[in-house]
């Protein structure tokens, strides 16, 4: 049974999450430039607003004002659809990411999650896989050889790493026994040997490494940014794009980064969990407890989630400005010959440990 207030609450949550996501995307572009500047002994954009905080606004205005060019020989329909196909899935995937404990209000239970989907992880993989079509179609529709090469690279890169990523997640599913992201996050609050929180990184260290590498490849970030390798393919799949269409590709990439970070946090770093924090307050094993009101716990959990996502976003930027990029054949080699066998091994090890009741 669905009552109107619940619907209203979830609708409001949709708007808030969407707004927060887009704002984060905007400020992530600024963060990328400021952090890269910090790493490279430069200043970065610091002129628009205090500390350059209004730079994303200026960028947005610039993107809208730019001339929207469609190459003459391009396939017009696909050319226009492609950026949308990138950004829409990127924003949709966030729907199943939980960012807090269930909230018990009088008369109803509210999930801190837009959709507590029973196949949450599958949903994310399915929708994220849609995003790649935007890149391939964009590369093809531009009628530019560089774009085409970028699109093709993207396709083969995605196929190579999608498998490794899915296999890595299978390990997590085996341990936690659920496809619901909320449940996965919840299980990570339980304790191992009585004191160690059962975070994914501890129970699935190998899976975590495979997953994070795959996720970098999936989001086309350095060292796997081959589809847009600016020195080789000029701009890769978005060479011909200008104005807001280019901005959509750009935002899609950043939104994907945020989703990827959220997934990393949820699957391997306990999601919104804070060690020993339950919905009645901190309970330290063998040392008593610290009671807290529900609203305070909720705030701490959302903050904890935000901090974890922020950490992974920073890691994305950090890696980008540190490493050179792979070559195309090395990239696929790594995917097929290293990550997939390792992921299979991880599944086997996990299975054995579960049978032995260690996990």
């Amino acid at each position, binding site marked *: 049974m669905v009552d109107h207030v619940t619907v209203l609450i979830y609708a409001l949550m949709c708007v808030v999450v969407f707004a927060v996501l887009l704002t984060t995307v905007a400020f992530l572009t600024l963060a990328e430039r400021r952090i890269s500047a910090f790493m490279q*002994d430069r200043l970065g954009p610091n002129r628009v607003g205090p500390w350059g905080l209004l730079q994303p606004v200026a960028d947005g205005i610039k993107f809208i004002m730019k001339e929207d060019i469609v190459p003459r020989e391009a396939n017009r329909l696909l050319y226009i659809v492609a950026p949308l196909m990138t950004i829409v899935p990127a924003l949709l995937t966030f729907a199943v990411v939980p960012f807090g404990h269930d909230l018990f209000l009088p008369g109803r239970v509210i999930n801190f999650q837009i959709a507590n989907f029973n196949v949450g992880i599958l949903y994310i993989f399915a929708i994220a896989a849609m995003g790649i079509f935007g890149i391939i179609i964009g590369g093809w529709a531009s009628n530019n050889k560089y774009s085409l090469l970028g699109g093709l690279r993207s396709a083969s890169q995605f196929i190579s790493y999608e498998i490794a990523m899915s296999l890595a997640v299978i390990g997590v599913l085996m341990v936690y026994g659920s496809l619901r992201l909320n449940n996965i996050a919840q299980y990570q609050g339980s304790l191992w040997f009585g004191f160690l929180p059962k975070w994914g990184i501890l129970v699935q260290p190998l899976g975590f490494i495979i997953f994070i590498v795959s996720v970098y490849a999936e989001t086309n970030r350095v060292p796997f940014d081959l589809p847009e390798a600016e020195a*080789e393919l*000029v701009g890769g799949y978005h060479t011909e794009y200008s104005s807001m269409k280019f901005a959509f590709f750009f935002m899609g990439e950043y939104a994907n980064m945020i989703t990827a970070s959220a997934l990393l946090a949820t699957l391997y770093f306990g999601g919104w969990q804070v060690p020993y924090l339950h919905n009645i307050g901190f309970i330290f094993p063998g040392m008593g407890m610290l009671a807290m009101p529900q609203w305070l716990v909720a705030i701490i959990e959302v903050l904890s989630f935000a901090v974890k996502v922020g950490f992974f976003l920073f890691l994305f930027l950090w890696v980008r400005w540190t*490493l*050179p*990029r792979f070559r195309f054949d090395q990239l696929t080699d790594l995917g097929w010959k290293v990550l997939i066998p390792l992921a299979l091994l991880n599944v086997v090890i996990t299975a054995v440990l579960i049978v032995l009741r260690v996990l």
Partner: protein
Amino acid sequence: MFSFERKRKDTMVLNMGPSHNATHGTLRIVLELDGEIIVNASLEIGYLHRGIEKMAEHRTYNGFIPLTDRMNYVSPIMNNVSYALAVEKLLGIEVPKRAQYIRVIMNEITRIADHLVAIGTNVVDMGALTNYFYFFKERERIYDLIEKSVGARLTTTFTRIGGIARDVQPDFAHDVKVLLTEIPKSIRDVDKLLTKNRIFMDRTMGVGAITQERALEYGFTGPALRATGLPWDLRKKQPYSSYEDFQFDVPTGENGDTYDRYLVRMEEMRQSLRIIEQAIDRLPDGPVSVDDPHITLPPKEEVYNTMEGLIHHFMLIMYGIKAKPGYVYFGTEVANGELGFYIVSDGEQYPYRLKVRPPCFALFQAFPEMVRGRLISDAIAILGSLNIVAGELDR
């Protein structure tokens, strides 16, 4: 005339340049691709051709120096020095020791700047942008010093026939020593970031490898030749401008690939620092130009106060330096290899013919052979590691 024919029917032709992110100038490379694999490559040069050699025939010997700035615009001072040495050999003169030492210092500083740019842009093409900024910070310091000593940053016109334009600033030694302490830090940073980086090694090892025999056949010089293992360095083999006074090693590689070229350049920067350190400690006093009124302009006091001075000034400005009929070739070791000037004089104030032997030209012609059968990413890495400078290539 440029022509390109496909080797196979089922391939795609990709036009890289004349304006492409990785060409760092105006080069045109036409690639025939099978997927990402390069089946064939063809080069077209001349987009930056300005007829510098022809212009030399209508300029006095000193008047040509500004044009040498515009050849390898990454290290203009080395071109200035190289040209001045060639003309001085034609005239049969030797510049004072102080001028020689200052030339060596500026030469080596510029060599470092050139290598910083070469490595920086090469790794940028491979996606490692941060190293570029670490290096360009130092390049900025170097250019500040050049500006302070010479008066210009890029178009230096540093030398004159028979010496250098003017003596360096009084605190030159101090400024150089600041560089000597700062540059090694950046080299160390980049060394840590790249040299043992697995991705970087995979991207560069064995990529663009060329054997020593083949390199010699192509006429390779400089870091690209030394990377194949041959310690050929004109500063050692036929020392000029007092290079014999300094202790330094000639680094060599083994495989002649992109990685070795990177290592050679890194080590050469350290050796250049060594040379600068020795030269600055032993910088002699004295004049910076030869005392010959037919070659160097007299000081301004003499021009304004004595008849002879005025006449010398007038004659030199109006008629320029006159060399005896004859010809000369002189090559120096610049950052990229051997830069040679072949000058034919018929006794007039202008050279009858001037021919430049740029190091890039020999390197660039090996490019198709190096990239055949490799991937686009390799082509980019190889192009960067050869450090093709269009201004010098096309002149």
